[in-house]
């Protein structure tokens, strides 16, 4: 492992001080393993350089990479941005959240950074880029240039992620992978628009180490000593961006003020201006001077959490989950604040919702125990929120290694020679353990493959299958060969390669499980070969049982993930029914046997992405962008409604290998076809209604 990291260069973009806690542990671990690490900061109203200086880490400012010769380019970008925003500002006042001159500084800084990040990547040539996220301009531009240069770009999770979904649009756009804390956030992001397969839960990269650090030190004792806490019971009240008025907290403050046994720490958000805190404190101090300690940034919030027995939040905040991870009792204060955060610790059953008055009562009557959550609820919450509470850093480092390896992956030759072809076609099917599906698939192959043509069917089956499936296989006769593999786990590319090795057809036709032909499919492929040549890869239009398009060529969507063109539309939607080249085809694929061997077959590491992977590899080998051809008269049927199984290892491999080659082509296709968004929406709507009506 250490040998792998030697001479590997990893760069990370950092911005706000309190967010570095998620990235720095990863970078430190990578450095420990021999990687060269470097931090980069951008230009911002709140200086990111101060973050780097405070963290005492090696850094460069992105402006360091902008030289005098770049100035004309910077001005050109600035001019472009200015034209766009000038028009927008005059047309509507919706953008006026920033003052004009601040907006102007932002635009100029953006133009400069755009050139800076490009030069940064070109100069430093990193093996891997890290950023907390890409919803700010620094992450977005770093991600963009990393992708342009085919450098893997991994993003993480900034915080609890409790805002409205639309706030996370583009969260995993340029990110090769987005490593999040748990399933809850993965589902939230994917539920809106993010590519689910590139979002992988790994846990929180900070909290485990922090808990270990706090528990292994006497920081809580020192804190108690520093603030003369004695044996007092300590309560931590954490404020987010909005500070509630002192009047709302009066009952709690009054109790603390009168209590001899309680000390209240009030922790303000790091982004709260000092002036605002002083004003607020003055309002409180007049009536409640005793037993309250105000903390802004002078103490670690984790030492405070560790030292206190009860944590109260004014709003849902990341510190809540951290408090639960520390094993503390959590209270969500009911302050009637207006915030739009659809997240609740209370609904997750790890906090009680109490008004300050009621909390004061609990404290007065010594009923703290009653506020504790049930261990089962806490366990369920933690599983959903943090997929790992122990070794998230290790997981990230491991994924980073896989990412870099995949990015440089070059397949090994298959190591077997092609024999002379006997048949025209070898139809290769991996046997999935679903007897009914397999039978239907084989029936349709037999039904639609002309007896006068020369073809064979090769079925490759995993190590063990059910009795029903075996019965289907045993019942087969004719030009069908069944190949037994010793693969214990489902490995589609491995099974397909095995079938290909045994195949004697001139052209290999791979059908994914549940994909069956309709119509004169073999003549359609033959016509395709005649028209486009035998070096092309061929795919067909796949519909489902509702006659909706499942596949009509693969395009790349706005988040740079492969998706079927015209999906969900009627199988005869005119624009989709065109024979033409695509970057990739999926689900079924026909390829000349010799060409398949030349391309080293399917890559096992690509798993269920193996067909896409082969198309991209073919295009790369031929130094062309489109090697696949969609044949509009090659019609196929998807017999089931199952989605392909997800294995993060395959997603890591596929996206890390091909990220630099996948650029938005979906919009371009629709534009070329003259199909507007409105038309697409209407067509999808009408299909949805037709499908629902049966």
């Amino acid at each position: 492992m250490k040998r792998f990291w030697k001479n590997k260069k990893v760069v990370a973009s950092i911005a706000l001080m309190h967010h570095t806690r998620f990235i720095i542990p990863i970078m430190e671990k990578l450095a420990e393993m021999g990687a060269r690490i470097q931090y980069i900061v951008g230009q911002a109203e709140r200086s990111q350089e101060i973050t780097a200086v405070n963290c005492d880490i090696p850094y460069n400012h992105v402006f360091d990479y902008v030289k005098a010769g770049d100035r004309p380019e910077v001005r050109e970008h600035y001019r472009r941005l200015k034209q766009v925003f000038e028009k927008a500002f005059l047309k509507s006042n919706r953008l006026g959240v920033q003052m004009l001159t601040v907006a102007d500084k932002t635009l100029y800084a953006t133009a400069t950074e755009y050139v800076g990040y490009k030069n940064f990547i070109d100069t430093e040539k990193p093996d891997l880029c890290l950023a907390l996220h890409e919803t700010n301009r620094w992450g977005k531009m770093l991600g963009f240039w990393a992708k342009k240069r085919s450098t893997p770009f991994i993003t993480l999770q900034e915080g609890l992620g409790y805002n409205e979904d639309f706030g996370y649009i583009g969260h995993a756009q340029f990110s090769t992978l987005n490593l999040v804390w748990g399933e809850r956030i993965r589902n939230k992001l994917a539920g809106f628009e993010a590519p689910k397969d590139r979002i992988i839960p790994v846990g929180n990269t900070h909290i485990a180490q922090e808990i270990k650090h706090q528990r292994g030190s006497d920081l809580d004792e020192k804190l108690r000593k520093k603030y003369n806490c004695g044996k007092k019971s300590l309560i931590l009240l954490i404020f987010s961006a909005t500070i509630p008025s002192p009047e709302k907290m009066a009952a709690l403050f009054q109790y603390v003020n009168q209590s001899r046994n309680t000390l209240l720490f009030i922790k303000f958000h790091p982004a709260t201006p000092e002036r605002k805190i002083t004003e607020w404190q003055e309002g409180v101090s007049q009536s409640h001077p005793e037993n309250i300690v105000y903390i802004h940034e002078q103490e670690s919030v984790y030492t405070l959490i560790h030292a206190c027995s009860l944590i109260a939040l004014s709003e849902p905040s990341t510190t809540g989950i951290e408090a639960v991870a520390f094993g503390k009792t959590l209270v969500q204060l009911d302050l009637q604040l207006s915030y739009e955060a659809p997240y609740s610790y209370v609904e997750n059953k790890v906090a009680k919702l109490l008004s300050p008055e009621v909390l004061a009562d609990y404290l007065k009557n010594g009923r703290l125990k009653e506020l504790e959550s049930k261990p089962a609820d806490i366990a369920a919450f933690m599983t959903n929120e943090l997929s790992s509470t122990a070794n998230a850093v290790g997981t990230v480092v491991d994924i980073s290694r896989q990412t870099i390896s995949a990015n440089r992956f070059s397949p090994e030759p298959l190591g077997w020679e092609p024999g002379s072809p006997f048949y025209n076609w070898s139809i290769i099917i991996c046997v999935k353990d679903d007897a009914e599906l397999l039978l239907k698939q084989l029936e349709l192959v037999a039904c639609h493959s002309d007896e006068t043509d020369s073809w064979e069917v090769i079925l490759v089956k995993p190590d063990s299958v059910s009795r029903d499936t075996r019965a289907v296989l045993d019942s087969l006769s004719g030009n069908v060969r069944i190949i037994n593999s010793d693969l214990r786990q489902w490995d589609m590319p491995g099974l397909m390669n095995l079938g290909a090795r045994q195949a004697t057809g001139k052209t290999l036709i791979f059908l994914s499980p549940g994909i069956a032909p309709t119509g004169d499919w073999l003549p359609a492929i033959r016509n395709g070969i005649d028209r486009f040549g035998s070096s092309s890869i061929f795919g067909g239009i796949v519909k489902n049982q509702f006659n909706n398009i499942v596949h009509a060529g693969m395009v790349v969507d706005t988040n740079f993930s492969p998706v079927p063109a015209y999906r969900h539309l009627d199988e005869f939607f005119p624009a989709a029914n065109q024979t033409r080249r695509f970057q990739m085809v999926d689900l079924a694929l026909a390829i000349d046997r010799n060409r398949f061997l030349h391309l080293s077959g399917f890559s096992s590491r690509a798993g269920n992405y193996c067909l896409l992977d082969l198309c991209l590899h073919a295009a790369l080998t031929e130094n062309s962008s489109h090697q696949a051809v969609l044949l509009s008269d090659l019609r196929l049927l998807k017999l089931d409604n199952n989605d392909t199984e997800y294995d993060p290892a395959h997603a890591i491999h596929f996206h890390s290998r091909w990220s630099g080659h996948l650029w938005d082509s979906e919009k371009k296709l629709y534009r070329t076809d003259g199909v507007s968004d409105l038309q697409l929406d209407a067509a999808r709507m009408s299909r949805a209604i037709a499908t629902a009506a049966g």
Partner: protein
Amino acid sequence: MEPTPAEQSDESQLPQIYWVLMDNQVTPFMIDFLTILKDRLRNFYRLNFQIPALCTQALEMAKPLGPSAFQVSSYTQNSMNVFLEKRELIGENEFKDGLSIWRTLLIDDFGLGNLHETRLHLEQDHNIVCFMLQIPTPLGSTEMEERIFYAWVYLANQLRIPVIGYELLPLETRWTLVPSMLDGIITVNRESYDYLRHLPDVKAPVWLLPDYEGRFFSPTTTHFWSNAKGGAYSLQNLYNLQPDTTVLYIPHNVAMSYEYKKLLRHLRHRAKNLHLMFSIGKDQVRGSFSQEETVELLSKEELPQFASYSFHDLNAPYEMTAADAVVACAHCYATLIAAGNRLPAIILDEGVPPNTRGNKVTVNSREALLSCVDELIAQHKQKTEFARIFLEIHRKKSKRSQ
């Protein structure tokens, strides 16, 4: 159509210039100047000074201008609809390599679904020629000024009323978004004028004020300029100076009568474009001749060739502010005052080597002198007084609405 005094006898019927002032944007000198300007334009335009009610200092200071106070309110919202509207506004524009602009800037920098709108509560009004606003700059304006500025610019765009910005802090910076959004830009510094005029994305006309107006729009204005306010207007009226006449301030000295006669002989080659302001001392009597008489007698052939000339008390040096430059035959009190107040000074002195120090040039030949004067004439032509700017805007606006 341009207004004429005869047509505009009733003040309420006059076309209006809405001039917005705020705290942090006014000085007593500026108010003094605006009082004179208002008076000067009274037959043509009504300068309607608008000040936010919350700008109590500006309201107090601007009392002589009879300002109107207007209310300002803020409206905030956070919603997906606002986000979608913003996205629509930015559109599908991209950097040239294909990076989407809204994806880069909207979610964080431009506040996602957050809206902060500043609303102006104004009386209904009509016949407004333009809105005049001080241009905010990235390194010198308050948030309140900026928000109100944008509210006016937006309103102007909605109502199709030209919005004219004037410079207080230098506009020769890399940040030019705000100037790009205006229908006209009034500068007070030549650097800003030259810079903005040559920016390809600033389409609006750029004007440069003559110093006797522009200096009042500067935080560095001194009593020297304040004392001279309106002096240039009086000179123009008295001598019927044409807009293209360049004015030179000549600190004549009877002890150097020969040199000054020679100076005028050189200057007569540009005479029809020049008005000469001679500074004279009452005690500069030689025999029975006053200094005024000495000048007229010795240069009787040259003086009639000039557009016009006038005599000024040398104890009122601030009168030189009406001039485009001081031209002297040796360094003297006047050239020092000129240099100290950033007025160009040209010294024709054959006894010292030629040199240039800031806005002070020493020359020792006729050719060099005339070259400097030619530049002054050219620069003078580039300067535009407020009155002419308003006429120009008014003419354009009238044409547009026809």
